[in-house]
């Protein structure tokens, strides 16, 4: 279900450097915090020189505050990390669709790569509340890039960690580790495209439903500019559904990540074109 967003001036109330180059910022915004659902994101207008809004996934939401966990990567995220204390920022949110939950008693495995952990705090909270047995497999390049582990464990989730260099947890990829587990009833994934593609192909081959939160460069974050599309199977629910031009050779359709997603079923995403 797509959220009804708000345009709010949210006040920055906390800032924590959780790892080198990784920040967790807290904002007071009762309505965005109350409406936040798993996989929702916000679009932030950063003061200073021109840029379009920065979209960032919501990490935690409690009472009247929500937090954003992000990696400093590029000009806009660096600017956000330096925002003055108590400065109100113009934030639109919550935006996007949300993950679907399986029935009580089912098993879920979450596969997250690096900062791809972001949509999963809210999801884990929902899954555990719905009595879904949940394992999070969290991978990163090294232990310095592993974030969110303590917060997920504090919710009561089983969290397995791995790193490419073996500096924390198992030396493996998140998907390798997930494959060692008993096949779940549903996979969830977020992270670098190669990991998501491998996860999607694994889930599709095993016949296990898999939901993936996708990323693309956003322009408007509101579904107007058609800048952030992903190719998906024609006829799938999130496909645009326009008629075909007579000379159109492509067999897929496009969906907008900003409003038709960010969550898509792995079976709908066309990894190979």
């Amino acid at each position, binding site marked *: 279900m797509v959220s*009804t967003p708000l345009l709010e001036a949210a006040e920055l109330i906390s800032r924590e450097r959780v790892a080198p180059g990784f920040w967790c910022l807290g904002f007071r915004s009762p309505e965005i915090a109350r409406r936040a659902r798993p996989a929702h994101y916000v679009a932030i207008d950063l003061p200073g020189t021109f840029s379009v809004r920065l979209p960032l996934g919501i990490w935690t939401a409690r009472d009247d505050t929500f937090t954003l966990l992000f990696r400093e990567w590029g000009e806009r995220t660096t600017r956000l990390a330096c925002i003055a204390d108590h400065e109100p920022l113009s934030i639109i949110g919550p935006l996007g669709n949300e993950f679907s939950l399986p029935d009580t008693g089912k098993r879920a495995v979450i596969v997250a790569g690096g900062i791809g952990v972001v949509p999963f705090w809210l999801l884990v909270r929902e899954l555990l509340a719905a009595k879904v047995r949940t394992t999070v497999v969290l991978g990163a390049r090294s232990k310095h890039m592993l974030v969110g582990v303590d917060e997920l464990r504090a919710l009561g989730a089983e969290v397995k960690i791995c790193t490419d260099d073996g500096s924390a947890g198992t030396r493996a990829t998140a998907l390798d580790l997930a494959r060692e587990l008993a096949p779940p009833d549903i996979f969830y994934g977020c992270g670098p495209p190669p990991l998501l593609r491998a996860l999607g192909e694994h889930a599709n081959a095993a016949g296990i439903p898999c939901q993936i939160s996708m990323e693309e460069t956003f322009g408007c974050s*509101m579904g107007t*500019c058609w800048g952030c599309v992903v190719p998906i199977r024609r006829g799938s629910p999130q496909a645009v559904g326009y008629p075909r031009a007579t000379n159109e050779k492509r067999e897929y359709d496009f969906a907008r990540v900003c409003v038709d997603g960010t969550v898509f079923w792995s079976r709908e995403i066309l990894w190979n074109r």
Partner: protein
Amino acid sequence: MEPMIGAALESDLDLSVELGALRLRNPIIAASGCYNRGAEFGRIMDVGAYGAVTLKSVTREPRLGNEMPRLLSTPGGLLNAIGLQGPGIAYFLEHEAPKLQSVPTAVIASVAGFSVGEFAEVASRMDGIPGIVAIELDVSCPNVDAEGACFAEDPSSTAAVVEAVKARVTKVPIIAKLTPNVSDIKPVARAAEAAGADALSLINSLRGMSVDVDRARPWLANSSGGLTGPAIRPIGVYHVWQAATAVKIPIIGMGGIENGRDALEYLMAGATAISIGTANFRDPLAPLHVGESIAAELRKRSFTRVRSLTGMANPDFAGVRA
């Protein structure tokens, strides 16, 4: 939700403008391509703050658009190559046009085409559709008839499109949207006027590109794209200034308008109305902020009509301040 229009605007001031036979309650328009079907931003603000919104361009055939990535943020601007993704005129008329009457302001349709005949056909099928008060011709896309150039790069091609459309569209005014990718816009503006255009929109995006040096490939899947945002504002103001010395028909100025002062630059250069495009992505309340700035400027100068600002900085302004 913000009030329909800022308190500063509900006053003694006359903000209405005329674009040919079209009268708008204020001079602030949402630019084509940035407002899709006029409804999306209504989730967070009142679209009624706009004097009009311009729809994303419609072509004769459905178009899937370009591969991604389609967008790149550049210093002061946004490079895009969406590729006119859209449903085609038949689907638009059946599924999307009926919803336009619920848009709480005037709606300007936009037509794009690859031949003179395509423009004429699509525009004529939009003529008289309830809710559509004017049709803008995006004569800035590649022209198959002229081997890949843009219609608006050439005065006679521009005139051919406008003439063909005017011959078949009788119920609403026609606005020709011109490209800045010319060394002199005056001959193109004159040609559009002589062919019967009721107003001009300028400027469309500037052709540009960026290279990803790590991968040694263009950033955009389409290689090149259109640059919008504040980086192009001085170019837009220049072209409006130039065109305003050449034609009498009203001009809608656009390109990098983010706030009231930007809008005033365009009005004083010779625009009758202004359009906000990329700035919506940053500030969906831009029409309110721009409107309030225009109102404040009028009060400062003891003007009562926004039309008084049109061309006031341009000594060779040839248009009408009606």
